[in-house]
């Protein structure tokens, strides 16, 4: 009974609230899926980092050891390690299973805004308010960074590693792309407004998305720096908010200060969904790497959104 493949349906949007997790860790500064989307990490302002099961919403582990609120976290490709950064100027590499601090990396002069592993979790990259990105080696026992990228003239607000490239967004209004293979640094001036927020890379690696404090998301061509699209409508004036792309790169999502998550069609630039999350500012969001699943963080809660209500209910019953 070989049926032909059904026509690819229009991508569904995560518009149904599946679950709300009250994280009990103060304000959730960032929420992140792990590499396969089965777990999620929530960075709390009460200095703790928590690991949750994404499907059941149960707390699996609490990682405490930071001296101030945790600002960002990332899981390694093999789920064995977590790196997190905090306002206490440190980057911590955690062992997932034991919850112990594997390494505490000091060196930033200010609070560390963003952190990420590279593909093989051999390097931790962290961007800080001191304007530097530091590349920490996880293999050797060196406690000094391999390299310090201090080209930015203002605070690094976000960074993203994609294969051999490193994208950093800085408050000086520029997106810097460090190409390790070519040994080049491309600096794109994006906005005269202060914050460049986050730039996930498209799946094909051709575009970068950046959001800035003029309430605009911009999709830029990577190679030339030309603007391919612009997405407006949300409100982002004062806070550092996340944005992301959907798993199949069909939509652009961004937090907003008016309590919604905005979702635009990537190609058309039209607003396709305005997801009401709550009354406060949606601070962070993360899209499931494969499925249509969205995490949003607002105040102390993390909400999981999915495309279909039923399926998730079945899931819940099954578990």
């Amino acid at each position, binding site marked *: 009974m070989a049926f032909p493949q059904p026509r690819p349906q229009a991508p569904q949007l995560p518009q149904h609230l599946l679950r709300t997790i009250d994280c009990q860790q103060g304000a959730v500064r960032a929420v992140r899926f792990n590499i396969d989307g089965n777990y999620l990490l929530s960075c709390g302002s009460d200095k703790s980092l928590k690991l949750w099961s994404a499907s059941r919403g149960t707390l699996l582990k609490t990682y405490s050891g930071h001296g101030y609120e945790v600002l960002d976290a990332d899981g390694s490709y093999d789920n064995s390690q977590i790196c997190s950064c905090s306002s206490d100027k440190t980057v911590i590499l955690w062992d997932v299973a034991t919850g112990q601090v594997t390494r505490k990396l000091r060196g930033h002069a200010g609070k560390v805004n963003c952190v990420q592993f*590279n593909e093989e979790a051999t390097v931790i990259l962290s961007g800080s308010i001191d304007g530097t990105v530091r590349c920490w080696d996880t293999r050797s026992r060196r406690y000094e960074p391999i390299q310090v990228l201090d080209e930015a003239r203002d605070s690094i607000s976000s960074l993203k590693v994609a294969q051999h490239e490193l994208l950093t967004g800085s408050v000086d209004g520029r997106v810097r792309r460090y190409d390790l*293979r070519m040994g080049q640094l491309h600096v794109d001036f*994006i906005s005269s407004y202060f914050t460049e927020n986050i730039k996930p890379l498209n799946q094909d690696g051709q575009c970068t998305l950046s959001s800035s404090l003029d309430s605009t998301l911009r999709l830029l061509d990577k190679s030339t*720096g030309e603007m*391919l699209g612009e997405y*407006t*409508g949300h409100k982002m004036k004062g806070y550092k908010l996340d944005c992301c792309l959907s798993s199949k790169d069909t939509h652009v999502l961004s937090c907003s200060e008016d309590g919604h998550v905005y979702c635009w069609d990537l*190609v058309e*630039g*039209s607003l396709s969904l305005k997801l009401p999350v709550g009354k406060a500012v949606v601070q962070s969001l993360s899209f499931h790497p494969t499925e249509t699943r969205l995490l949003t963080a607002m105040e102390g809660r993390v909400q999981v959104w999915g495309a279909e209500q039923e399926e998730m209910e079945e899931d819940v019953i099954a578990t």
Partner: protein
Amino acid sequence: MASDSDSDEDFVTYGTPLEPLEEDEPLKKPIPLHDQTVKDEKGRYQRFHGAFTGGFSAGYFNTVGSKEGWTPSAFVSSRQQKAEKHHARPEDFMDEEDFSEHGIAPREITTSQEFSSSRRDKAGEKARAISAQAALIPGDTLLEELIAPARSSIGVELLMKMGWKEGQGVGPRVKRKARRQQKDGGGKVYGCTLPPAGSEESEDDDEEFAPENVTFAPKDVTPVDFNPRLGVQGLGYRGLDPSLALLGHGTAEHIDLFKPQSETRNRLFGDTKSSSRRGGVVGQAFGVGALEDDDEDVYHRDSMSRYDTILGEEEPGDGLYGWTAPQQYTKKKDRSKDASYLGKILEGFTLAQKPLEEKTIFPPPSLPRDYRPVHHFRPSVDVSHLSGVSPALAEALRVSKGHMVKEEPQQAGRHQLDSGQRRALLGEDTLQGPSSVMELLRPEDRQRLLSLRNSSNPPSAKTSIPVSSHASQTSGKSAQVLPASSDLQQVSLAAWRGIQTSSQTFKPFEKNPSKQARYELYLSCLKQGDNDALEQSLDPGMTEWERSREREEFVRASILYRPTSSSLSSRFTRAKDQEDDDSVEVSPDQEGDLDDKQAAVKMKMFGKLTRETFEWYPDKLLCKRFNVPDPYPGSGIVGLPKVKRDKFSVFNFLTVTQSREAAAPPKPPESGKKSRWDVSEQKVEKKKEDLLGELLSAARNQTETKVEQTPTPALPALPASISSSDQAPGSKPEIKSSDQQSSEEKKDGDEEEEEEEESRPPMDLFKAIFASSSDEKSSSSSEGESSDEEEEKETKEDEGKMDSEPLNLFSIPSTSTTTTSSSATTTSFSSSANTSSSHQAAVSTQASKQEEEEFGPKLPPPSAALSRGGATSICPPSKEVKTGKKSKEKKHKKKKHYKHKKEKKKKKHKKHKHKETAEEEQGGGDGEQEDGQVSTDELLKRLKSIRSHQMW
């Protein structure tokens, strides 16, 4: 003995301190063994030959031969004559080494034993015994005593003949009572001493006995031991006490390290027959013989209890108080007690009575408040320019400046004075001849020379020969202003204009009053916005060279010492919000490329304008971790290549610059990261996209929504041109007419070169864009200078040719990008542009017309923008119906551009094109474009890419 100045605790240091150990000093490599050779004075290697030959180097150069070879020189054949019996003496077998000072038979003149000072006296022995205590092997005088020669020196014999006895003091006999020697029998007793000798002589009864007629020999003296110190021990070193080592006081007794007077010394000074103890060699240094029975103390046991643990004396009182004692205990110490911890005071030294005088260290003088730690080597063109003033008066003027008198001797040497100053110093009169070679020439020759020089200027001078009309009026004497300096002039003009606070400015030419006066005149002209302030303020009596030099100095000084408001404003960029119109105006040329980028961002022209690409060197390890080959193998650089230039330096101001970007003072955040790549990047940008840059400046005009203000393009000459046009409105009509002439002629040229020009938009387009940005001053001056019509034609032709040449002609970044047709009003421009464009070929004409329509309304910002917005809002947003109204309103400006980009992106993202709406969108987009509504970035694209060019 240096005592610390601030601490009153008296630390006394002996000796010279060790050199501070430098940590990063490389370790001295020890000389390898094979290099450790010994040579004698003849350069022969000395080898060890054996103990019996005296050690080193037997024979002749380590051979058994001699200088003559194997045959000794003393050999005489015994065939004919019998050699005499030769008695060999030991010296025959010695070489010079043996005869030398350290040999076995030294041959040198020494005092013979007889005349040498005898040591055969008891006092000398005593002295030697004392010193022998300090010797390495204590008590080594024993042997000498045994084998002493039985003769004394001649001096001793003489003395003895005079009645002197050994041990006596030398001198005339005295009449008083003989002093009892060593009255107290050894003085103080430290530690543990020998038990007082049993056979103590009772000398006490002699005390009363003092006969009148008896004279006594002088007091016995212990002669000072003049033996040189041989060892490497320090000054106060004292060897092992032989009394302990040899005489076997093995009992646990207190060793006082700091009290040198041992019992041995006491014994030496006192009676010698004290030792009833068993002598012999017993102690730690020697083993216990088989026959000796007391072997219980074979290994000398030492304990810390025998040593002092405290420096100084015991605490007074009951010892209940430690270092936390109340003040009465701690403060009681006086200086004499302080010295006690010093322990032994060296022989010949006494403790100072009064403390060492403290060194007073004076604080460094405080700097005056207006002190600037930068020295400007300012070429001082001086008194000679006071043309009418006598040298004496000039001197007086200079002296009357007060502190200048003081600085006079500090002035640099005579080589830095110019001829005028030297003349003034020497009091000579001014030479009456012409001051310049130029003045010797006839006026027409001079004119020709000048024009020659102008024509040999760099090609930028071709378009703008900047001899101002004013300069040409002054009989050609005033030189032409070089383009760079004219740029600087504009900068300074922009900086100073409108500033009324002339209260306290820096006087850079204070040394030279007349020059300062000229400079101030120049500044005041600048403040009034006078364009040719420089020409007015300069002294016409000076030579050509001096004037040009002074001109440059003035311009630079005016930039350097510009009022703080403008220098501050050049540091900061304009606030983005345009609400406050009374903000400080920055001349547009001073805003750097950041503004270009912002303008580009505003126009949504992302891409090359907003992108900078640098070489970046990742760390090797980073590459390894990322599994990426090192892009720059073998290079040691990490990160961006280092910047050569200082972050912020005075020299940034002083460099003579050709481009306006460099002429503007570097902005601190920018210049830190700027380097050669920045320059090259600029060049690239200029080469490829100077058109874009010009578009951009036009765009910036638009974005600066200041209606009442004249549009300000990115050319520094603008304020000047405006002001000059304000000054001389009468000159406008002529210029216009000549413009039209030129444009007429240019038409022909354009038609001739139409084929070459097809690849890019015609010149008139740019004229239209830069309607107000032309450098009027330069063009008018060029026209004023060359009144000839034919010449004018030729230059225009040349320009046309140059325009058709590669685009990097436009990369001349300064005011030289002046369009030839100059006018102050936009209307005249558009008219001329229209006429010229109407003559062009069909395709390009259409294009340019469209662009004119695009660019035309842009210059007056608000109303045109509204109309344009209305036009664009006609085209319906297809899919946006359900989106919020707000977003639609926001978007309608960007819509066209976005649509276009989207279409381009469709090609890229094929996989997303599964939507039915995509075709609609594309169709709509095409329709839009065919409407002829070409946006600015559309134009940009057309200029950039061939593909977009084919669309036309």
